[in-house]
């Protein structure tokens, strides 16, 4: 059945069927489903590629990457295979990686989905900052105070933690003198390069 490798819709429905029956088709390479349909290789290899990409981008984004950006980088890598990879496919592959204990997980921040590849715990405050950052790619302490109704201490704490975890970068070069915290994981490349000093 070539269908399963070539058709993301088919894969999603297949997984739903398996879930209803109580079977995990990806539990083991030895599984009947993996062998018969060849989906094991598809997902396990996808897992390897996702780990690679997360590692390669970690110095830039601190271990949090936008799922869409991950998919773009994936399709560049997989050009030869010409098999499309859906968001659902990525989420499934990552959920399998989770058991290996290095913090791989898909988290929702606002409207976006981010893939975490480090064991850093993100609490609710951090999530809210990330959501705020989606608008322009950066956040200031003042903005966090204003938009989230936080004290300046709370805002600074959250931003500084994200900074030390490598998820944010500092930009102090603006005329207004306000420190900007840039978040590579939610800022697209164009936003980051477009902003002047």
């Amino acid at each position, binding site marked *: 059945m070539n269908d399963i490798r070539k058709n993301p819709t088919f894969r999603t429905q297949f997984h739903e069927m398996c879930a209803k029956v109580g079977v995990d088709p990806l539990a083991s390479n030895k599984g009947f489903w993996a062998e018969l349909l060849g989906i094991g290789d598809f997902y396990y290899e996808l897992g390897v590629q996702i780990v690679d990409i997360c590692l390669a981008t970690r110095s830039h984004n601190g271990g949090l990457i936008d799922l869409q950006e991950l998919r773009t980088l994936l399709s560049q890598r997989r050009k030869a295979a010409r098999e499309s990879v859906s968001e659902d496919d990525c989420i499934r592959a990552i959920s399998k990686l989770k*058991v290996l204990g290095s913090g791989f997980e898909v988290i929702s921040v606002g409207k976006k989905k981010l893939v975490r590849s480090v064991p850093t715990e993100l609490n609710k405050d951090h999530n809210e900052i990330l959501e705020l950052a989606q608008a322009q790619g950066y956040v200031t302490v003042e903005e966090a105070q204003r938009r989230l109704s936080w004290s300046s201490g709370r805002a600074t704490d959250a931003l500084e933690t994200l900074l*030390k975890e490598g998820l944010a970068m500092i930009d102090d070069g603006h005329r207004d003198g306000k420190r900007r915290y840039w978040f590579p994981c939610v800022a697209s490349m164009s936003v980051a390069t477009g902003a002047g000093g």
Partner: protein
Amino acid sequence: MNGNWLPQAPLTASGRPVLQPGEVERSLQSSVDLEAEENPRLTPLRSGLLALTTHRLIWIDESSNSGYAIFLANVIHAYPPKKSIRSMFHSPRIRLQVSVSAEGRIGEKGSTSEMITIVIRGKNDPDAFFSKLWDALRSRPWEVEEKNGEVTSVDGGVSGPGSRDGPSNSVWIAMPVVGVSGILRKEQEIWESTDKSLQEAFQDLNALMSKAKEMVSLAEKMRLKLLSGSSAHANVANDEELGSNQEMQDWLLSVGIASPVTKDSAGALYHQQLSRQLADFVQRPLERSGGMIAVIDIYCLFNRARGTELISPEDLLQACALWDKLDVPVMLRKFDSGVMVIQNKTHSDEEIFTRLKSLALKPNALRMGVSPSDAAIILGIAPALAKEHLLTAESKGLLCRDVSPEGFRFYVNLFEEIDPTNTHLVKHHGLFEAWVSAASVFG
């Protein structure tokens, strides 16, 4: 062979189909039957040659030198050969939905249809044949000619405007395929046929799934029995029982129920084998990574080395968990943060702590602390893992952390040097003194 329920196809004297202008043969299969599914009165055509051309499917009976054809234009849909357990024992079948005229003639334009089965018995590749058939049905090469100004027949028997005689003396009519609507129609057909082939695939899967459901509920019962039975009846275990336990584990695994590794059971044989293989495999990466490597890195390294038949993350974990039972020099370890690593059994935490402490006592470190990257260089392991060690040392009271915008830095734990009854006392010896002199360099 009374195949008169299909339009006749003229053959040459040597039994080759007479091709129409622009018609090209694409594939030839031997030992093919054609059956009219819904109409058992119609004698099936047995053991003929089936030629796929750009325009038609032509079935040829060599002994009687007769041929019958189905115009591809009158094929409403084609269903691919089923892949199911059942079908492994039968000859592959391709099913066609063919239109039927008002007078009940199959293979001619009409509003009703009939299902015809193509049974491929010979040593053929049914998949390759089907994909060629599919290409022809989708790309409709007989219409391409029409667009180029020629008129092409879609029905062998009706006359109309713009007709001309072909070499087989049948009359042709134009089939209007105009610009956008033609494209749209093609798109729609592709959509519908994709949907239908998905449905077909799901029909098979559904059949499999209902069987699987039975298997799964049975398997679950067995699994529970394995889990409870093995510990309760430890004394009763004999070879035979162990053997069947093993088989059950493997079978459970193949159904998609991961077999648990308990202290009594060794899990599936598959995982036992994998466990040994992995113990061998990790030696080299461990050496390169200073004796400790994250499990996720092994997952990538191992699967990349394998190339195909990759293992799942759960397979890897099960295999590592089994190392306890085998005599191998490696072990699985989980840190508080959840990070899991593989390390050599000879690896000693104490040794690491000693090295970290002596690193933290250097004058530079007394002033500025030790970062995970510093520790990584000294220990020869990855920074993320070095951080785990630093955190563990901290939890043992050897180091203290300092968090700043630059990240985590660790300092030797000075608190133990401070007399709780006299916190202002500055000791002039030992660690305290060393720290004071190092810190005061800044003035």
